[in-house]
């Protein structure tokens, strides 16, 4: 694999003549990049800047077609004092924290259980990753039916075990549990796939020599696999954390944020604020608060990736 360092080295090593040709090609390569760059600037960077501007404006689209003036940091203050926002932050932390830890544990366990190349095990793997391709809106819809306390399948099955199932979507606490269940159901396969790829990149000889030394499989998992895969697991954890924080679709169709504000997450709160109440200023301010946290997490991801790549 060519890391940037090696590219750099080979570039430095090239002769003068070669360098001229590189510069000659450069125009071509720039031309290759331009369409993508323009689109990213227009659809990502421009709206981002626009959003930073909105965060300082008093603008509710339902009462005015234009901004009603600069308000400085007032939007930020209003958002931070808003009880629904505070609740949304708590909910997001709770849902993402619990769901991602569960996904990591279950996904890693399943990756080991579903490793192998026999036909049956391959079929099992195909089956297990299905939730990954299902649209989150559809997954939310599906679980909305599953978890209906009266007519849904979940409580019906629980009744065979003699358990009186809870009012999943009607009770504030159980609704949070429901959101976590759906998140775990949808994205555990992602962890499974990544861990499976990580395990298969561990040299077989390491396990063999460990087995010769009398190490049990559990021990070789603990002392060989885990340390070797630690960066990968950490990255997967961060990826999943960010994605889970951003998820909106499944909550939308599962609970609509309810009952009351019980399952409002940060993303859902900003969504309703901006695209239902059309309070553009406050929504932008809230999303920049959210953004600062996400950027921090991303810097950690990035740093880890670079470090891991140069270590390889």
């Amino acid at each position, binding site marked *: 694999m060519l890391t940037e360092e090696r*590219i750099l080295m080979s570039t430095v090593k090239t002769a003068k003549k070669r360098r001229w040709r590189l510069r000659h090609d450069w125009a071509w*390569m720039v031309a290759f990049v331009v369409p993508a760059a323009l689109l990213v600037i227009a659809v990502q960077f421009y709206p981002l800047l626009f959003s930073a501007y909105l965060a300082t404006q008093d603008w509710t689209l339902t009462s005015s077609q234009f901004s009603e003036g600069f308000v400085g940091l007032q939007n930020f203050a209003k958002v931070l004092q808003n009880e629904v926002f505070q609740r949304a932050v708590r909910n997001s932390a709770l849902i993402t924290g619990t769901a991602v830890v569960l996904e990591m544990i279950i996904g890693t366990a399943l990756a080991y259980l579903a490793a192998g190349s026999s036909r049956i095990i391959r079929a099992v793997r195909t089956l297990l990753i299905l939730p990954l391709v299902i649209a989150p809106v559809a997954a939310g819809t599906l679980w909305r039916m599953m978890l209906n306390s009266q007519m849904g399948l979940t409580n019906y099955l629980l009744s065979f075990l003699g358990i009186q199932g809870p009012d999943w979507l009607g009770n504030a606490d159980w609704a949070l549990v429901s959101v976590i269940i759906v998140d775990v159901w949808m994205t555990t396969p992602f962890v499974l796939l990544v861990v499976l790829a990580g395990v298969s990149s561990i040299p077989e000889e390491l396990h063999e020599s460990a087995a010769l030394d009398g190490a049990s499989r559990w021990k070789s998992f603990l002392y060989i696999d885990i340390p070797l895969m630690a960066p*990968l697991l950490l990255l997967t954890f961060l990826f999943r954390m*960010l994605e889970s924080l*951003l998820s909106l679709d499944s909550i*939308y169709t599962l609970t609509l944020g309810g009952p009351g504000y019980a399952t409002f997450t940060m993303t859902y709160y900003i969504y309703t604020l901006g695209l239902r109440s059309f309070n553009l200023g406050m929504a932008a301010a809230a999303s920049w608060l959210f953004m600062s946290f996400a950027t921090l997490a991303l810097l950690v991801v990035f740093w880890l990736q670079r470090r891991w790549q140069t270590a390889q």
Partner: protein
Amino acid sequence: MLSRSFTKITQRALRILALTIACLVVLVPLGYLLLNSVKPQSEMYTIPPIIFPSHITWEHFEAAFSNPRTLRFLTNSLTVTGITTAVTVVVSTMAAYGLSRMGLRAGVLSLIIFVFLFIRFYPRITTVIPYFLVMRQLALLDTVWAVIIGHLGITIPFVTWLMLIVFQDLPREVEEAAEVDGASPLQRFGLVALPMAAPGVASAAILTAFLSWNEFLIASSVTKRQAQVLSIAVASFVTDRGVQWGPMAAMAVIMIVPMILFALFVQRYLIRGITLGAVKG
């Protein structure tokens, strides 16, 4: 010796048990959705529930397809997914090739990669509201173009990032040999690098198609009636006052079954695409 083979058998049994449970957890909800989509209205809301319908009815699908709006959702979804995927693959593959062969300094390339990562994971809701305003200004609200351009904003950086990994992994010698033989940059890209990167391109195209087909946030913010796609149609049942499980299940089935079949068909490329970004980055 005996006890050792005994623990082996127990281990095996436990493994089979755990995998069976995991498969059931995936399959049972999906089966339940399918059953609900063919269950007669009269058996839908009973307590205790009737899980297996007494007979199969297609009434929910008939109702869905006799509504001209459903066909519009479908054609809109197909148009958006098709155009988004085609444009993304062409534009991103070229961009990734350009970036990987520009001879950029390591620091610059790292910065570009961070920008891609940032675009993929920052809270998208931040740009959705300004994007809505821009589309309103351009009078593109409620057109498939608003949805397509919005999707391109996500898929192009993501796929460029994936293809950058693919191109950096390719052996450079073949291209250098072609260069010595007098191949132009365009020829080196199209005739040398691209064929070698073909499996990566396939993975990228498939991932883009899934992303665009399943996307909800952008589609819901810039469409009202004309340009609505399937994800909006599925979500719209939630806000309706009455409970309409039959039509709701049927619409969800219409949305997910083609993608499940597609996923089974292209499984290898799909898995490669999903793991590529996480494992290598």
